[in-house]
């Protein structure tokens, strides 16, 4: 009996420590150990997976100086440059390049030439000519030229998934000569901006794409013109990129030879890696732990505005939220300021409508709902629900503490109005499926982050609010022909008359705000954490969470 007792004690202790410490320190103290021999914390690697033969050798201490390690909080769902529309861009942006590049805010010019050296359009922005850079090679040795540009963009368009819609205005691509390419558009559009998109605008080797197809890319291959190429890929665990010696930009002393992505969806592991120095860069750490990191000298916390915001899309076709007054009442029921100041400790600013601050098409003049329960009560009474008396389902992505806390705080406020908010955590895919399943079955409130593909208000206003026959991201089930017409018109003008376009976009946002289609919670601050010896990092909200490793060096 005594043995049994001891045994249960041990098992109990083990279970508790396991639950509590899942992926906790292997190295207990926080002393900034210089790169240790082995990345210690890798509990997320599924133990059942046999080690792939392609797995890279562990970087040794000596070689570590030339290796940039990005502890990445998500997996890479699709590494096909024609299709990718997700977190893969962290990898792909180091391998592929675009014709133009959107400069970080505060730069003199909006765009920077990359694969195109210059470009011009006709007066009404329906014909665009790009002059291409000479002497550029793809990583498979193929030459970069006008035919490759034509092929990449046409192929991306033809496959037509992800952000491919950005090329919709393009009717025809004409190869004028080897280094000149001309786009004929069916309606005016800002093709210079479109070409800088962080998704679907990459130029890839036509030969490689024809020969191998999508699956090959997802096995861990890439063939672009950029500075790094994929060396090995252990799906869901690690991706190693190595430098492309013939990169047109050339190589200087001190630049990184290798870029390693260590994937872990566990924020505790990410924090361990950056603290121990096994990783050089990461994001998505628990925000409440950032203060402690701020205090450390060997770690820098970068805080920058982003083009990302959090919205709560309201199911506008399901009672009671089909009633505009009820939606407005909800908009008045959330304590924006208190939540941002106290819970988020200022990691965000309340949004003015759906277009984030710092982007063109944003206006500080737009009406902001504020916290006013009396007003909410009055609106509910007008709508015929003087004492509330209904349930609403709120889903959030499990693991997103901000979304979870938002739900918990909001629940308490809505309870005061007699509304029962059911807060339910689901995996992102599951809640998206539910949201798309039709207005009757879908949840009442779907919280979602949105960020643009190319930098235009249209990305926000079209994807989330334009009428859709088959629902993709219009998860509010919003249908308003007048609104559709306004933003379509504005989009056409945005190539030729950006000022007029901006006016129309702002006009359209007024409709959304008055209709209270969504709660515009806040614009997110980008927070990235890097080792202090990493030099040259500049956050660019147009390419969220992308690190252009080519620009970095390690101080010695």
């Amino acid at each position, binding site marked *: 009996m005594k043995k049994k007792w001891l045994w249960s004690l041990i098992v109990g202790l083990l279970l508790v420590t396991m*639950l509590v410490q899942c992926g906790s320190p292997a190295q207990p103290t926080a002393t900034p150990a210089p790169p240790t021999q082995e990345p210690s914390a890798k509990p997320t690697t599924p133990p059942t997976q046999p080690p792939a033969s392609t797995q890279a050798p562990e970087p040794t201490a000596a070689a570590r100086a030339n290796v940039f390690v990005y502890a990445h909080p998500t997996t890479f769902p699709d590494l096909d440059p024609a299709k990718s529309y997700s977190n893969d861009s962290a990898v792909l942006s180091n391998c592929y390049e675009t014709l133009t590049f959107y400069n970080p805010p505060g730069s003199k010019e909006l765009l920077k030439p990359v694969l195109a050296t210059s470009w011009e359009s006709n007066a009404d922005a329906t014909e665009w000519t790009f002059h291409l850079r000479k002497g550029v090679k793809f990583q498979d040795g193929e030459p970069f030229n006008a035919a490759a540009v034509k092929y990449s963009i046409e192929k991306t368009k033809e496959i037509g998934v992800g952000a491919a819609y950005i090329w919709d205005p393009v009717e025809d691509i004409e190869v004028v000569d080897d280094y000149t390419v001309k786009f004929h558009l069916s309606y005016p559009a800002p093709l210079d901006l479109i070409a800088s998109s962080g998704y679907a605008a990459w130029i890839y080797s036509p030969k490689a794409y024809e020969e191998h197809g999508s699956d090959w890319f997802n096995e861990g291959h890439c063939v672009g013109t950029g500075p790094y190429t994929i060396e090995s890929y252990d799906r869901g665990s690690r991706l190693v990129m190595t430098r492309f010696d013939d990169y047109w930009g050339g190589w200087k002393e001190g630049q990184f030879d290798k870029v390693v992505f260590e994937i872990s969806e566990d*924020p505790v592991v990410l924090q361990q890696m950056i603290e121990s120095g096994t990783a050089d860069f990461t994001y998505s750490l628990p925000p409440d732990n950032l203060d402690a990191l701020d205090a450390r000298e060997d770690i820098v916390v970068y805080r920058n505005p982003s083009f990302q915001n959090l919205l709560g899309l309201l199911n506008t076709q399901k009672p009671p939220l089909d009633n505009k007054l009820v939606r407005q009442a909800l908009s008045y029921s959330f304590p924006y300021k208190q939540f941002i100041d106290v819970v988020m400790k200022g990691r965000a600013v309340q949004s003015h409508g759906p277009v984030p601050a710092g982007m063109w098409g944003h206006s500080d003049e737009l009406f902001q709902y504020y916290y006013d329960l009396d007003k909410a009560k009055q609106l509910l009474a007008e709508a015929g629900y003087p004492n509330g008396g209904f349930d609403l389902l709120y889903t959030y992505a499990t693991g997103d*503490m901000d979304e979870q*806390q938002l739900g*918990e705080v909001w629940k308490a406020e809505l309870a005061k109005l007699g509304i029962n908010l*059911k*807060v339910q*955590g689901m995996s992102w895919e599951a809640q998206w499926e539910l949201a798309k399943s039709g207005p009757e079955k879908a949840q009442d409130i779907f919280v979602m982050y949105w960020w643009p593909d190319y930098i235009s208000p249209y990305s926000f206003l079209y994807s989330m609010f334009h009428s859709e026959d088959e629902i993709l991201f219009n998860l509010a089930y919003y249908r308003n022909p007048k609104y559709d017409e306004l933003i379509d018109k504005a989009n056409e003008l945005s190539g030729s008359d950006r000022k007029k376009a901006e006016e129309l976009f702002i006009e359209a946002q007024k409709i959304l705000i008055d209709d209270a289609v969504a709660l515009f919670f806040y614009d997110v601050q980008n927070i990235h954490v890097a080792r202090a010896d990493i030099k040259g990092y500049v956050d660019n909200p147009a390419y969220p969470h992308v690190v252009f490793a080519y620009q970095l060096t390690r101080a010695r």
Partner: protein
Amino acid sequence: MALSPNDVDVRAQRRSARYQEYRLMLGAFRRDILALISLVIILAFVIGAIFAPWLTPYPDQGRGEPNILEKFQPPSWKHPLGTDYLGRDVLARILFGGRSSLSIGFLVVFLAGLIGIPLGAIAGFYGGWIDEVLMRITDVFLSFPPLLLAVAIAAALGPSFVNTMIAIAVTWWPWYARLVRAQTLSLREQYFIQAAHSIGVGDLTIILRHILPNVLGPVLVQGTMDIGSAILTGAAISFIGLGVQPPTADWGKMISTGRIYFIERPWFAGSAGAAIFLVALAFNLLGDAVRDVTDPRTRRGA
């Protein structure tokens, strides 16, 4: 049928023998210090859960009302176990969390027994093809790793308290069916059952009157120990986001959300972990004690 004086006499004798037995059990139990401590721990948590609204100054926070101005306070007199990420008193959350965790423990075992005991008794009593069919069904359930099956069922049914309970109970009952069947098999061959048969007592009566009372001992032991495991399983399911949904307090959920803050603010996940640990351990020790006490050999030897 009228009772003859003789009958009464026999019954009284039997009763007094049973009392004697109970007194011996109680005596043995009282000598087992660990068992007593376990009982006290369990009672403390049960009482804490039942009377939670009166035991804490912050019942609203226990139910989930945020108090964001006092976010992440370390333990103090005002908040003996500190506050969580929305400023709620962790002690209040632990007390309220006991409601879901403990009821999962008790109800899962109850449900599992409710399904498993009758099936096991029937299988053991009748044998033959009935036994075959029922035991193959339990084999199917037992061939899945229990946590995996529970997680799969909980995921299929959707995240909620009741579903978590059902999911765990579904993976649990085969153990009871097997236990009861094994006991029944040996009982069925014993003289007193044979005798009952021979004087024409019905099957149902034999099962209810003669078999079940005799298998309850081992089932009780198993059940007591299982409550702890069921709480752990419930915590594990909550931990991965399938169980109780926020803002309802739950120990497993508290660990899963508190885990990412564990390094700097250990009081939050640590308290919930300690609660699970204590309760699971206490139920295990109590189960041991119940076994020793109900078995005459170990009882007298103790």
